[in-house]
């Protein structure tokens, strides 16, 4: 019961965030509600995302991970916060058409993704991954070598 209300609250928050301001129209138009599902095609509702959707379908991870596995942090609360904020930016960008072309992942979101890799591959990278004493600057970047795992060029 508690959990359910929490969820609902969060969802409303997310919708509000995403639909906030200029995003309002876009959100409906782009079937914003789909933002809250895990279905990759949800992301693809937005043609801006269709390239990446197409590239994901070709990637080694299509059977392993959906967009949200790599682009939203695990756990209910952070997940929907990220979505709310991204939802807002995306709606804003989509409406104003003002966003970098080609698209570039933002540092915060790259951070989310780098964590996602480890969440699933903890075991295999145990020895090579950063250790105590390593400064943040020294953290291994999975993307340096595996930038195409989620999106096959």
């Amino acid at each position, binding site marked *: 019961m508690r959990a359910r209300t929490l969820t609902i609250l969060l969802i409303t928050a997310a919708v509000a965030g995403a639909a906030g301001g200029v995003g309002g129209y876009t959100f409906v138009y782009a079937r914003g509600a789909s933002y809250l599902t895990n279905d990759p095609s949800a992301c693809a509702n937005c043609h801006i995302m269709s390239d990446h959707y197409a590239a994901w379908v070709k990637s080694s991870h299509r059977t392993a991970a959906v967009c949200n596995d790599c682009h939203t942090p695990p756990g209910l609360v952070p997940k929907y916060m990220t979505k709310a904020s991204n939802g807002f930016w995306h709606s804003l960008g989509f409406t104003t058409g003002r966003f970098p072309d080609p698209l570039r992942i933002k540092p915060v979101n790259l951070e989310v993704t780098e964590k996602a890799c480890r969440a699933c591959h903890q075991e*295999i990278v*145990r020895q*090579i991954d950063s250790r105590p004493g*390593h*400064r943040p600057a*020294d*953290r291994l970047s999975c993307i340096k070598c595996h930038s195409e795992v989620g999106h096959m060029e």
Partner: protein
Amino acid sequence: FERKQEARNPFYRVVDLDDDTTDPSVWGQNFPLQYDLYRRTVDQVRTRYGGSEAVPRTPDEVDPRSVVAQSRLEEDPRLKTMWAGYAFATDFREERGHAYMLEDQIFTGRQRVVQQPGTCLHCHASVYVPYKQAGDGDLIKGFERVNQMPFAEAVKLVKHPVSCIDCHHPETMQLRITRPGFMEGIRSLKASEGVSDYDVNTMATRQEMRSFVCGQCHVEYYFKGPEKRLTYPWSKGIRSDQILDYYQETGFRDWVHAETGAEVLKAQHPEFEMWSQGIHARSGVACSDCHMPYVRVGAMKISDHHVRSPVLNLSNACQTCHRWPESELKARVETIQDRTYQMRNLALDALVDLIADIKSARESGASDEQLRLARDHQRKAQFFVDFIEAENSMGFHAPQEAARTLTLSIDNSRRGQVAIREIR
């Protein structure tokens, strides 16, 4: 949460390692996977321009080796002309895996023609602990003392080729620099770039360290002054022409050329220097990324400690970044190398022509003053072509920079020939 625990302590420790444990087999008990790969550097496989070929020989009392690498002097006699009067003209072989570094140095023919200093060991043995001992705990003091010993005496202090302790901190396993030559060299380089008091072990990033550990040895060097201090000539910069400027200013010479009387220089394995000028370095790709790529062993991914030619290991070394088939990757490497090889040959031919001209002018009585200009051209031309010849990737590490260096060599050789003909 549990996973975090593991992550913080990824190794299962069997023995305790301390800062005096030189023997790799002891480290190997904690890290058997890396150790097994490390031992595979005894393999000898040849690539078009790299790897090495196992050449059998009958051991004798001066040299017990039953297998060596092919002789580069036999492959290309022009090298003998270039090095006339220097130890390298007697024995110079293709380099092979790390496992051989100590014996190859001890038994090279070069040891027999010249009395070498202890300095050599800096890059051919695990000297970290021996240095500390020779310096009563002080690494740098030990370095200085060993430099000044005769090789025969110094070699008694060492037992192993490069070992774990030379690149790793025994507790954290983090990379570290143990070689005074590199500590001082990189400090002078940074100083030339405006960074003062650079301390590599505290100031380098992990990714930089993945190349610096190799830069401890794969560099151009010389022995400075009577103390034979091992020195990396980087205080004016790390490019071939900047290094020559350094030698021009200090007036250093390795030897006097037997046929021409020119005061010449020997360039040696400037892999670190050439790599630094290439697009890979610029893109943050480290030596280890290609020569020690990650390899999956069971459920674990580790660094391939079988340090070798990436051409023998293309899929792990290149394919994560370049989605080309192995055959195509190989072709790309060899296209770059074939072009470099062609230019290198053009430069060697020009140099050999110049040497012949100076030689005959000298025999027909030209004075030192008359030969000065031509000899100066020889000194420069020879350094530039040797810089690329000695660099072991046949141009791959920095294709355009290698070519640029060779244009400087060719221009100098041919101008030297003109100078000879200007003698009045």
